[in-house]
């Protein structure tokens, strides 16, 4: 039976629902350390699609790939709990300050190294930038087709996939062969919860860098290779260094500003018949309505 080699691209993102200007560094990049970090929501939807492929073709393997600081390994663990087979943390100072193009370049080099990947699944967009660019750019770099805004895999055979896309005012079903990259919308099903057995199994998974910080952990897990989360640096992937990090990023942040609103002189009106009557009259005489 056919099995698929699947890579899920996931990003650890600061929770942008509650941030201020202090979260930005002077050079306009993000000070991630200052913010709570979460699994980018749509990437969990992406993981679920990968798991569904594996449900149908059980021999398939799911590798979660993330580029970020050492701390980003947290989401790989979260992925293990929910069913991912393998995880790779792409981390190096050389990647710092990457815009979407430099990020896509690094991710595509890592995917090339994983080899023979059939399906790449990623989220439509990450909530820290809301750009929705990395998916299509990775596809372009790998020279493979992309299917964006995916909501459901409607059919999957050993050599073809049909995907339902959610567009602004409708749906479209498209068909592609492999390899293909799919970006998943938040309208797709939520990710299944953590699995209790897997939680036990991977509770102590961590990266070497993390483990070196605490001797004890290091010893207790030395015998289980699956508990060591793979870390790749620039030297582990074949790439052109010019295209990485801040230097490989065509876009630069020139400045960031706080948002200030001009308050208006507002008139307060109480919820009484007379007041509302007067207001409606005023709006009519000044030709705003009527």
């Amino acid at each position, binding site marked *: 039976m056919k099995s698929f080699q699947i890579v899920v691209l996931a990003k650890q993102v600061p929770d942008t629902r509650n941030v201020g200007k202090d*979260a930005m560094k002077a050079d306009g990049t993000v000070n991630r350390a200052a913010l709570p970090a979460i699994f980018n929501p749509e990437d969990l939807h992406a993981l679920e699609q990968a798991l569904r492929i594996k449900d149908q073709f059980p021999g398939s393997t799911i590798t979660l790939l993330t580029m970020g600081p050492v701390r980003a390994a947290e989401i790989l663990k979260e992925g293990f709990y929910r069913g991912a087979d393998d995880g790779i943390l792409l981390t190096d100072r050389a990647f710092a300050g990457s815009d979407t193009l430099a990020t896509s370049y690094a991710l595509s080099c890592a995917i090339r190294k994983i080899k023979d990947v059939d399906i790449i699944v990623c989220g439509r967009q990450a909530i820290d930038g809301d750009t929705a660019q990395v998916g299509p750019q990775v596809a372009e770099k790998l020279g493979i087709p992309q299917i964006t805004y995916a909501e459901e895999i409607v059919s999957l055979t050993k050599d073809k996939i049909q995907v339902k896309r959610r567009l602004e005012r409708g749906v479209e079903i498209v068909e592609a062969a492999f390899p293909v990259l799919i970006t998943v919308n938040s309208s797709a099903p939520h990710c299944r919860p953590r699995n209790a057995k897997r939680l036990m199994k991977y509770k102590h998974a961590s990266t070497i860098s993390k483990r070196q910080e605490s001797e004890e952990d290091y010893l207790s897990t030395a015998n289980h290779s699956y508990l060591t989360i793979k870390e790749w640096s620039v030297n582990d992937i074949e790439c052109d260094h010019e295209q990485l990090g801040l230097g490989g990023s065509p876009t630069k942040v020139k400045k960031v500003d706080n948002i200030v609103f001009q308050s208006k002189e507002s008139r307060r009106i109480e919820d009484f018949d007379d007041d509302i009557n007067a207001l409606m009259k005023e709006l009519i005489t000044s030709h705003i309505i009527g």
Partner: protein
Amino acid sequence: MNNVIVYCELDEGKIAEVSFELLTKGRSLANQLNCKLDALLIGSNLKGFEKEIFPFGVDTLYIADDKRLSPYSTLPHSSVVVNLFKEITPQICLMGATTIGRDLGPRVSSALKSGLTADCTELEIGDHEDKKLKKVYKDLLYQIRPAFGGNIIATIINPDCRPQMATVREGVMKKAIVDENYKGKLVNLDINKYLDETAFVVKIIERHIESSKVNIKNSPVIVAGGFGVGSSDNFRQLFHLASILGGEVGASRAAVDAGYVEHERQIGQTGITVRPKLYIACGISGQIQHLAGMLESSIVISINSDPNAPINKIANYVIVGKVEDVIPKMIRYYKENVK
């Protein structure tokens, strides 16, 4: 050469509104830069569209007309765009931040190794000094957009790579015809030269697109409801008020997420941008992301039970009270006073 170019998008056989808005912006950028404005239209049966496009001040319209180019599909369109851009090397390229533009833009920017900024809310021309390199860049495109969930505004530039690419949502820029009789040049592209034969590996099996039901953007009066409206049942009052005022109903994201009304009505940073004569905000607290879509309204009335709701600061009239009590009164006194 090195002009401003707008990718004109077809929305079910018609040119998308956002494309006209971008042509208008593109014209003003081209004037500032002292260059020409180009446009690119890709699809099938495109005869006659030039009459709609030239009046926006387009100097050259490139047309790629082929049965296989409709409906939109990523690879065929990106192949035409990339090959054309390699030839005419535009300095700026604008696209709508639509499902099409946001699928196509990153693909093109990656192929050309140029920078792309999504969802810009303002575009300006300005200089940039790189202190480290001791280099001054003249006349860059400032791509201004909310970042970090809308909490800050970032200005992005692409000093070295061309084209400088940006996507913009519908309604953010204003559309204006320059001259009904503007004389532009029409260039029909030889498809075989621009279309890679490998571009047809993804097949469209089925499509159901509904035509847009609501036209909030051009409505002079908008009655917008938020989470404070409480239910889709309560929204009916808002529809009633909107209909007698000749307006439309809009909503905050919280109201859309709660399922009170459809997503098409969402106003704000991740919805549409509106500038009506009158905006009546009902049970909307006024978070930054919502304000981003309605701040340019001429008159704002806020109806909120909380006298300190943030939206009240930018409202001309603040009615402190419950939506369900206030709206019936507004309906009644409007009817009594209008002839």
